[in-house]
């Protein structure tokens, strides 16, 4: 790697940068979807890209862990022969916000636990990530400061920060360095540019303040005493169990595995497809027993899967503060409100601030 860690990309060179980058390998970036939403899609030019953007409907998780992914092909005529399926080629994702970088970091941990998920890890190895800093909040649903995801902390190859008429670009990996060399639109950052960046970060520390009145260190302790709290009853009254919250979450990784037989009645595929703990049949087992029959138990499970269980296992919250669950909820269940209720119902404790 070069010694230089920071480069500049002038805004007027941005269009050329995107066009060249898209020629290196397929490039995904945020584009407009519908009237109020955005989605990561493959692009070839800068004018397709929509900046700034609020979190996309689905996080970039879909490129690492696709909604539906064939795991193997089988042929029963060859003595139950089964073989792996080739996984997609290399690609670049441009414009990944810090919340979504955090989401990918969470998934990296989950899928690296043995037995390792090779499909995920192969895709991950082939994806180059270019992050993009949020200078301000996207909207009122975000809670990235609560989970320390409002500032970059790794998980990218290059990281872009908009500083007016130019981007300052942090190089984090060899793959990032390779882009700098291949695209040839960058120039080394000067001391004044780094001061601009430092000034932005200082301003951000004022803008991005913990969105919930609690000390995040004590969140797991708060959850420890809240399992039977009244807040879950309130969610039960409202939740439709539509599953939107889990489908759009950057750290939900549950999937179902199904076999599909072709019409030759001999060959077929085994595939996995995203599943959701919010659906009625998710925790149903043979014999008809359902371990989480009530919406109360299912919503509670979702929150514990973000703030309690992964903290015990990985020492990290699996909420990235992106706000997608609150944005997507039909019933208006808001994560920040749920946490606020937990605090007020939790009584006196170190979590109170």
């Amino acid at each position, binding site marked *: 790697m070069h010694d230089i860690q920071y480069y500049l990309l002038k805004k007027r060179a941005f269009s050329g940068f995107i066009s060249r980058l898209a020629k290196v390998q397929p490039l995904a970036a945020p584009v407009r*979807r*519908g*009237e*109020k*939403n955005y*989605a990561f899609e493959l692009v070839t030019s800068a004018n397709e890209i929509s900046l700034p953007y609020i979190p*996309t*409907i*689905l996080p970039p998780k*879909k490129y690492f862990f696709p*909604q*539906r992914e064939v795991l193997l092909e089988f042929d029963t005529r060859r003595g139950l022969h089964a073989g792996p399926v080739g996984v997609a080629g290399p690609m670049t994702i441009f414009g990944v916000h810090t919340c979504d970088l955090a989401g990918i970091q969470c998934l990296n941990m989950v899928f690296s636990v043995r037995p390792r998920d090779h499909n995920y890890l192969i895709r991950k190895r082939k994806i180059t990530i270019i992050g993009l800093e949020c200078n301000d909040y996207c909207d009122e649903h975000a809670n990235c400061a609560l989970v320390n995801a409002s500032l970059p902390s790794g998980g990218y190859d290059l990281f872009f920060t908009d500083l007016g008429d130019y981007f300052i670009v942090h190089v984090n990996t060899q793959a990032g360095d390779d882009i700098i060399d291949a695209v040839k639109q960058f120039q080394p950052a000067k001391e004044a540019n780094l001061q601009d960046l430092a000034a932005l970060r200082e301003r951000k520390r004022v803008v991005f303040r913990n969105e919930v009145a609690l000390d995040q260190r004590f969140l797991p302790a708060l959850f420890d005493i809240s399992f039977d709290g009244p807040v879950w009853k309130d969610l039960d*009254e*409202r*939740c*439709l*169990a*539509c*599953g*939107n919250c889990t*489908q*759009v979450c950057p750290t939900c990784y549950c999937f179902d595995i199904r076999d*599909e*037989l072709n*019409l*030759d*009645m001999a060959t077929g595929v085994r595939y996995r*497809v*995203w599943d*959701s703990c919010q*659906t*009625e*049949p998710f925790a149903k087992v043979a014999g008809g027993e359902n371990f989480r029959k009530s*919406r109360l138990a299912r919503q509670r499970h979702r929150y514990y899967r973000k703030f309690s269980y992964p903290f015990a296992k990985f020492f990290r919250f699996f909420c990235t503060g992106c706000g997608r669950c609150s944005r*997507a909820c*039909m*019933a*208006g269940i808001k994560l920040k409100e749920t946490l606020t209720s937990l605090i007020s119902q939790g009584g006196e404790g170190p979590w109170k601030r």
Partner: protein
Amino acid sequence: MKRPKTAFFDFACCEGCQLQVANMGDTLLEVMGLIDLVEFREVMSEKWDGDLDIAVIEGSITDLHATERIKAIRKRSKVLIAYGSCATIGGVNGMKNSFDLDEVGDCVYGEGRWFFPTEQTRAIHQVVPVEYAVNGCPVYIPEFLSVLTAALQGIPYAVPDYAVCIECRMNENECLYDRGITCLGPVTRAGCNSWCVNNGNLCYGCRGMVSSPYVKGMKQVLEKHHVPIDFVVNKMDMYNKCRELDRNGR
């Protein structure tokens, strides 16, 4: 493997779901290689009155004649597949159940209505036992093929018991409620791959409701979006009126 004797029958319906089979394209040739098609009024003239391995039933049961006929078909069929909304949930024919039967008869047949005695609309499973269901108006052909391969293997096919929203989000559609459009996806069974929303339409609930739809919660959502409840009940009843017959206990 001996190809199973298969027949398509229609009751009260538009036959559009059978048309989906006829329109299947190349895949139809593969399907024909799997089954021995002995009766299918829409595409062939031959009839079959013997035993059947698979009977595919389109349409709902709306009069005494249909009741007798479906019972007779059931008796000579090993496997019965309810096919399309009319068959699986009563579908649009169920709207008749919102009215007085005499009134309905008068409206359609006038003075001659005594020649056409009518009954409450029922889905097929409300009259005879059914092994498989292919929901939809019309059916979603990939799902029909999944059900058919399941039937040929003699294994169950589970219709997803969760909302269309699950598939709609996976397809990364913008939620129609974000655009101020009322959609029945949140209470309708998935399995169609959110076919309508993917193509710029909205969900009409043609696949029937999830097994335990949260009615109170849905009302709250509609209130939040200022949608009158009667409007939605009418929308639900367009396909799901026969659901009342399930609730009242068969």
